[in-house]
């Protein structure tokens, strides 16, 4: 028992360790800034707060939109990869391989200037969400496929034995088990979507990164601008990881399934 208690860090230990890490990080940053004689003045960003806010909101809109569309693409292609019709299976596997095997930047140019132009997708926000969804969908496809494969086949056999229809099996067996398994990975992917959305600035989607580029061209305060924008991205991804922690605890085994019954 005492051994167990010893392994749990005390509050004092936690506070001291936290302070230690913070000191090292801040100290390192401060030393670096000092050694190149940089003087940071974040008040230079104040006149742009309206535009920054709009960019921030646009990043959220694009990320959430892409999350929804990529979940859809990812789920369909995950199932498609194991389709009995070989052509469908090949199509889905090819999609996953090519998308995961090429840089997002290349895909943005390719889809926007060639495919988008050819098929008349003019709205760069719609195009941006679609391109990002196609990219992230390939990763989500693999997450979903892995999750589906990890479910013990016997769970389906039980469902069959008690006379559940395939749709009810999906609703009460497959989805709840799948969700609890892939939630952490999905949350990580959502954080990636938020960061990856910054690349959409190359097709002039006015999200956070594009906003800061425009502001930089105006005030020439690169360092303040990019440090600040990095902080904004971190606030977004950190919130996602906090929310996912809460969801994980709720969905992991102990979660109440009463609402399904």
């Amino acid at each position, binding site marked *: 028992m005492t051994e167990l208690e010893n392994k749990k860090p005390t509050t004092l230990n936690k506070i001291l360790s936290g302070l230690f890490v913070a000191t090292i990080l801040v100290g390192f940053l401060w030393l670096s800034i000092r050694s190149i004689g940089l003087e940071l003045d974040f008040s230079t960003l104040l006149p742009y707060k309206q535009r920054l806010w709009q960019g921030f909101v646009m990043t959220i809109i694009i990320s959430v939109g892409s999350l929804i569309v990529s979940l859809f693409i990812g789920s369909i292609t995950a199932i498609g990869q194991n389709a009995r019709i070989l052509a469908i299976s090949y199509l889905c596997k090819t999609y996953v391989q090519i998308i995961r095997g090429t840089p997002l930047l290349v895909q943005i140019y390719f889809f926007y200037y060639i495919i988008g132009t050819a098929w008349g997708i003019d709205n760069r926000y719609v195009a941006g969400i679609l391109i990002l969804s196609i990219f992230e969908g390939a990763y989500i496809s693999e997450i979903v496929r892995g999750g589906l494969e990890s479910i013990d086949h016997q769970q389906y056999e039980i469902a069959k*034995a008690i006379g559940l229809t395939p749709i009810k099996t999906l609703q009460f067996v497959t989805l709840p088990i799948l969700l609890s398994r892939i939630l952490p990975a999905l949350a990580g992917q959502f954080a990636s979507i938020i960061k990856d959305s910054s690349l959409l600035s190359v097709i002039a989607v006015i999200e956070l990164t594009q906003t800061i580029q425009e502001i930089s061209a105006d005030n020439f305060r690169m360092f303040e601008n990019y440090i600040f924008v990095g902080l904004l991205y971190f606030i977004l991804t950190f919130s996602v990881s906090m929310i996912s922690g809460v969801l994980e605890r709720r969905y992991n085994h102990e979660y109440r399934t009463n609402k399904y019954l």
Partner: protein
Amino acid sequence: MNIELINICKSFAGKLVLQDISFQEEVHSIAVIGPSGGGKSTLLRVIGGLLNPDSGEIKIDGIKIDFNEKALQLYRRNIGFVFQAKGLFEHLTGMENMMLPLIHSFGMNKYDAEKAGDDLLKRFGLSDEKNKYPYQLSGGQQQRIAIARAIAVKPKLLLLDEPTSALDPEYTAEVLDMLGELQNEGLKTIIVTHEMGFAKNACEKVMFLVNNQIIESGKSNEIFNAPKSPELMAFLNKILEWKV
């Protein structure tokens, strides 16, 4: 209940597992015994409507089973099936496992399902376990809940696929006690088992399956006391060698 199997054949990837199985008996309780790989579990799954045979027919009380998926779904609702292990939904508590088939296969309302589940769990001394998840339960408790779930829907027939093979001897006894009690109440059962004591004493009839065929079947005391086929004699000698 009259069960009739007519020339059932089943193979997996070219390997024959059941070869022309024919059998007709008035079933009260049957134990299916035989060496591993003999086709016992496959036969049980075919009878339970979980696997379609490649050819052959099954008649229950003279009514032929239709092997199309829609008809099978209805058929399965009247048959209880208990697996060797891990027979509970892993994401549901004991109670929720009991309620799921009652509500979603039988359309019972939540209140009645909860009451039915509660009564059965209480009866088998599992009330303390009702809010636990399978990973928090012992193998014996899991198995007893699985049996309770299977009988909650009042099946015409209960099928059990080696329900005690994955259990410690102590848990085996508690599961077999529960089964014996249910059989005495008139529940029709077919059990695939390696527990020869249970097959001999608690089951009315025995079917001996070896090399994909039924070699011998009949009343259990006759089968165990006077085996006719050399295969069964050899099998019984082998497994009884180390019995106390």
